[in-house]
């Protein structure tokens, strides 16, 4: 009896098994292909960095050698050292300065964007929609379109004749004065700052109203509510904006190049040192500093890429620390849904 039952069951099961098998292979295949795709993409992303390594760390003589592809014949740090001397004229202090600059601007940007974002999201003041429209407008118009007028504006900087009190000419030339960059960040016009304001306002929109009400009933004023209740609740978006702001400010060549060209930030040094017009100068430096008479065009590229590698180090560190939070936090950012 038992046998018979088992037999009929197995007959039914056979169909099911085939179905399951089909399903399984199908799923397996899809999985396999998507894995291949993912691996391919990962490879494409990391390939440029990986291929830097042999170029940067092989001797200058080996650069044109077709036999050397991945592992340098002789390990050498000449290009690396040259690049370091080029883009870090004061040694690690230059790197420290660039990092500090980016971090400082980041703090300012986060602080002021959060304030504006909060007000736009939670306070129904007069002309709120208009201000929101302004933020969007600033985001949409590429910042370089106003570069010319902004530049002239900073050359002849004068707020309502206040400068009359300080200088004779009644105006002050702010170009090459780092204060321009600080001013821009404080008044909401740093790198991509309108985007940050937008992100903050989207985030604050989704915070439950009860939090605010509770704090009011407990006797907090506007500022205490904001700094004690709202800001601590906004940690996810603060870190997201913070990471993006740091990365963009560190890599920014636009504001630093035009408004503070002598600031010797690593990003501007990198972009101004390694232009093709400077090729001979760099090769000459390579020859005299490190006694490498055969330095060719290829060596120039090696030095250049070494420079990029040095430049990337702080960014990679920040990225490695922050990236896991980035995805989690964006979910809570309110941008979505």
């Amino acid at each position, binding site marked *: 009896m038992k046998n018979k039952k088992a037999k009929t069951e197995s007959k039914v099961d056979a169909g099911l098994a085939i179905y399951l098998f089909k399903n399984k292979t199908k799923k397996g295949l899809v999985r396999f292909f998507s894995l291949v*795709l993912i691996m391919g993409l*990962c490879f*494409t*992303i990391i*390939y*440029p960095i990986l*291929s*830097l390594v042999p170029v940067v760390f092989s001797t200058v003589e080996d650069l044109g050698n077709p036999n050397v592809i991945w592992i340098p014949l002789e390990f050498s740090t000449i290009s690396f050292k040259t690049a370091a001397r080029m883009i870090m004229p004061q040694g690690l202090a230059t790197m420290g300065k660039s990092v500090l600059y980016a971090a400082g601007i980041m703090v300012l940007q986060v602080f*002021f964007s959060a*304030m*504006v974002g909060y007000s*736009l999201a939670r*306070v*129904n*003041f007069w002309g709120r929609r208009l*201000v929101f429209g302004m*933020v969007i407008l600033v985001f*949409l118009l*590429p*910042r*370089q*379109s*106003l*570069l*010319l*007028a902004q*530049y002239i*504006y900073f050359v*002849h900087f004068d707020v309502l004749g206040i400068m009359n009190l300080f200088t004779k*000419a009644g105006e002050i030339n702010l170009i090459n004065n780092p204060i321009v960059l600080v001013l*821009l960040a*404080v*008044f909401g*016009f740093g790198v991509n700052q309108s985007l940050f304001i937008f992100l903050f306002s989207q985030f604050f929109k989704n915070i439950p109203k009860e939090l605010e009400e509770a704090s009011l009933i407990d006797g907090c004023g*506007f*500022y205490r509510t*904001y700094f004690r209740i709202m800001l601590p609740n906004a940690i996810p978006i603060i870190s997201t904006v913070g990471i993006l702001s740091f990365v963009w400010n560190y*890599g920014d*060549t636009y504001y630093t190049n*035009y408004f503070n060209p002598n600031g010797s930030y690593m990003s501007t040094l*990198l*972009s101004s040192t390694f232009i*093709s017009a400077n*090729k001979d100068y760099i090769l000459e430096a390579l020859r005299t500093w490190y006694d490498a008479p055969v330095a060719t*065009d*290829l060596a*120039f*590229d090696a030095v250049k890429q070494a420079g*990029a590698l040095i430049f990337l180090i702080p*960014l990679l560190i920040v*990225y490695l620390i922050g*990236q*896991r939070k*980035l*995805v989690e936090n*964006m*979910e809570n950012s309110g*941008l*979505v*849904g």
Partner: protein
Amino acid sequence: MKKKRKKISFRTMWKIHGVIFVAPFLIGFVAFFLLPLINTIYYSFNEVGVGDQGGMTFKWVGIQNYIDLFRSEVTTTNTTMARLFTEENSTMLLSLPLIVIFSLFMALLANQKFKGRAIVRLLFFLPIILGIDVVMDMLTITTGGTTLDTGSNLLSGSYVTIFLVRTLNVPMRILYPIMTYVENIFDLISQAGVQTLVYLTALQSISPSLYEVAKMEGATAYETFWKVTIPSIMNITFFVVIYTIVDLFLKSSIAEEAYAFAFTQGKIGVGSALSIVYVGNVILVLAVAALLLRKVVKKNEK
């Protein structure tokens, strides 16, 4: 005095605080945006010179600057302005859909569950830092002969291509454009960092119960994708498209041209005219994109 104070209601006070909070932005808007914008427009209708005492002198010339811009002026690389604009716009319109679709694709891949997902995500968002202009310039633009490539020549020299051409006789005419795109894939990826991040979060915020329902109703994966995933991320696509357009315009070289006109050649008026034309161009593209997208979004929301 006390009575007067009481008149300001709590709500009004709250609003005043709100205005104080946006005040920095408002000041910045006037100082760093509105005034420069008005000035740019003003300069563009004037011949701007340097006066005897160091100030600036203006001579009204009407739209002469604009006419000069397109008739006689050339860029630093000796192309005409009309050509510069057509090139910028066409490359932008070509790469826009590619970047948007590609970032969605990357997000879909990263959203799957598999082992080592953390590492894959780590790599997938690397373009956020690799895509910075300086880094890209250093990595790709080279001066020497055969130098570092960013994945270029991977396809054209590969066995796949040889197989396609020799055995299947696929004509080069068809293969070539595909090859160019594949070889520039790193360019594409490097511009899709933030977009991928945004898409990934959008995908993760779709309620799993929607997928369960779809499964119960017997929808195939294909149907689920088009009926559940795509409508759910339509709103965010709007944002991604706008962001991509803005980002692409940010990278264009027109600003450098304007700067060169103004400070290398001393033609501030012409440079300003160029800036204004540029702003008009951006607004036009954005408006068209927004109009088109709004239709698509609405259709999908029904």
